[in-house]
């Protein structure tokens, strides 16, 4: 069932020499891509990825990924927010220009809790979103997978595995037959033209 087609990424056609960028295998169900991912993981590839329209449960394990490190960024940002709020309020109301309002002391911890909490949350949220984008190296509007026309369905109902040619284990024929043994519905080679 695994059909096969070669295709150049660039539109120029077969004028010049081409260099492979990655192999892209397409699957029709989450289960297929899950088992294929286990297979690629066990084959020892490093520079490869699974592309799915939604996060597939357990895929991190099937790919052998480490736990996400976003949480650590959030922790650091959250503590920074909390501390910033504390220092800000202590400096402004308690030290630099204490105002006596309602007979309350300039520096008073209970009244500082709400703002400390809000700034903790605000900076943590920045940490979560921008930390996530940073680790993922997004925004990045170009990637070899986008050369494939079939890849448009990756955000619809198809599942893909891509193995980059930069992977040390990558061998055009061997990797391709390995991918074909995982029951894909299509395997595609994406290459770019080499200027000479």
């Amino acid at each position, binding site marked *: *069932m695994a059909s096969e087609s070669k295709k150049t990424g660039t539109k120029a056609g077969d004028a010049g020499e081409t260099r492979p960028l990655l192999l892209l295998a397409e699957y029709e169900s989450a289960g297929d891509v899950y088992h294929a991912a286990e297979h690629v993981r066990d084959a020892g590839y490093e520079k490869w990825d699974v592309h799915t329209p939604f996060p597939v449960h357990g895929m991190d394990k099937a790919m052998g990924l480490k736990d*996400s490190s976003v949480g650590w960024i959030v922790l650091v940002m959250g503590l920074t927010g909390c501390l910033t709020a504390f220092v800000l309020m202590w400096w402004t109301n308690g030290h630099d220009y204490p105002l006596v309002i309602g007979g309350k002391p300039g520096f008073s911890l209970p009244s500082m809790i709400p703002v400390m909490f809000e700034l903790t*949350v605000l900076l943590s949220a920045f940490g979560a979103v921008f930390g996530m984008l940073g680790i993922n190296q997004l925004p990045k509007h170009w990637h070899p997978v986008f050369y494939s026309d079939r890849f448009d369905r990756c955000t619809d109902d198809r599942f893909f595995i891509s193995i980059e040619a930069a992977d040390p284990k990558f061998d055009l024929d061997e990797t391709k037959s390995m991918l074909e043994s995982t029951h894909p519905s299509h395997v595609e080679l994406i290459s770019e033209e080499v200027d000479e």
Partner: protein
Amino acid sequence: MGWRKPMEQLDEQYLVSEGTSLADVTEIVSKVTEQKAPRLWWILFGISTAVTGILGLTIAYLLWTGIGIWGNNSPVAWAWDITNFVWWIGIGHAGTLISAVLYLFRQYWRTAINRFSEAMTIFAVICALMFPTIHAGRPWFLYFSLPIPNQMNMWPNFKSPLLWDVFAVSTYFTVSLLFWYVGLVPDFATLRDRATNKIRKWAYGFVALGWRGSNRHWSNYERAYLILAALSTPLVLSVHSVVSFDFATSVEPGWHTTIFPPYFVAGAVFSGFAMVMTLLIIARTVYGMHDLIRIRHLELMNKIMLTTGSLVGYAYAMEFFIAWYSGNPYERFVFINRAMGDYWWAYWSMITCNVISPQFFWFKKLRTNIPFMFVISIVINVGMWFERFVIIVTSLHHDYLPSAWGNFSPTVFDVLTYCGSLGLFFTAFLLFLRWFPMIAIAEVKMVMPQADPHLGHHGHDDHDEDEDAMTAEPAMAEE
């Protein structure tokens, strides 16, 4: 597969109609932004932009003349403007509750309505923020509330709940916007990949940030989403608590009560769910989303309204009881005055709309009747507006010394500003329906039976197993 039996016994249903494929979900949601807008959309959009225009003129006049054009005057210095502020911010809370709290509790049915309600949160908070801004009279001095070094060498008073409010509401707006946007990124990528013309491809491509569904990305994405949900949950509780501190920390009878924070939060969720319901029924009918937004979703929302409505009813009763039990004559007077004084009609409208009307949802027949729940959802929002009006105006108009008593009546500009804010809200919402994926495509797919990688181990050869899949896998809604 053993899960199927308990599901039947529990009378559980799937979250999307049986036989809906992944591609159907993409199609149903995306086509709304791709096809021409229905005529009804244009009619509603025309009305709401016209109303927004009136709002713009009203605000221009207000800034030119001063807030004396409103009915606010001593002793009722806070009136419709603050009522509207609290009302709008409360409406926003349901969005965060649905997107964050229900996420943490693994209530998968939320996927059909979370995008929607998060959008509602953003627009409601924009409307809410408008009111204190223009109430300040000279909005160009709003930077006074921020700790910016200035020539007067003065700092804001961080012991004031009004300043806490500035921090709480602006944090809330920012975090809600981030949460919403993060959820939208994969769906923008879907629209980008379906785009047939260049402008759509560029525009959606730009906001999709080059999303390519990579699992290495999903892994961090899901963690970030979980953390945002965990941050938003205490945040949403804190925001309305801080709003209630504006009242509760004063020494005004009727305001100075410890029940305010939880009571305000319950009321906020109550009114927000009602607003989501109103919008949801309209959009579901106009765009035919029956496969994704099912009666079951609406019924669950009605149950939440019944719960929060009863909580609010309990708070009203408890306020009265404590007013009597405190032995404080001013407190007692304010509450008797609420129910039987000049504004008795507002108080009893509030009781009818908020306490009595949700009680109909005890009956399954009424809970699943769409026209009925539509009417009730509007009634609840009217009631929740009256609640804020009652709290603010009745406490202020007769407090301690009878010589300082007064009455409040709104002017035409109060009405225009309030109605105008509704216009602004609906304009933003209609634009959202037109150009954004109104249902979280990726999240809905995630809870469908096809999303389970361990589904159907009957070999890799039969791929057209959609129907089989449907019966084999529980996309369990709860538990």
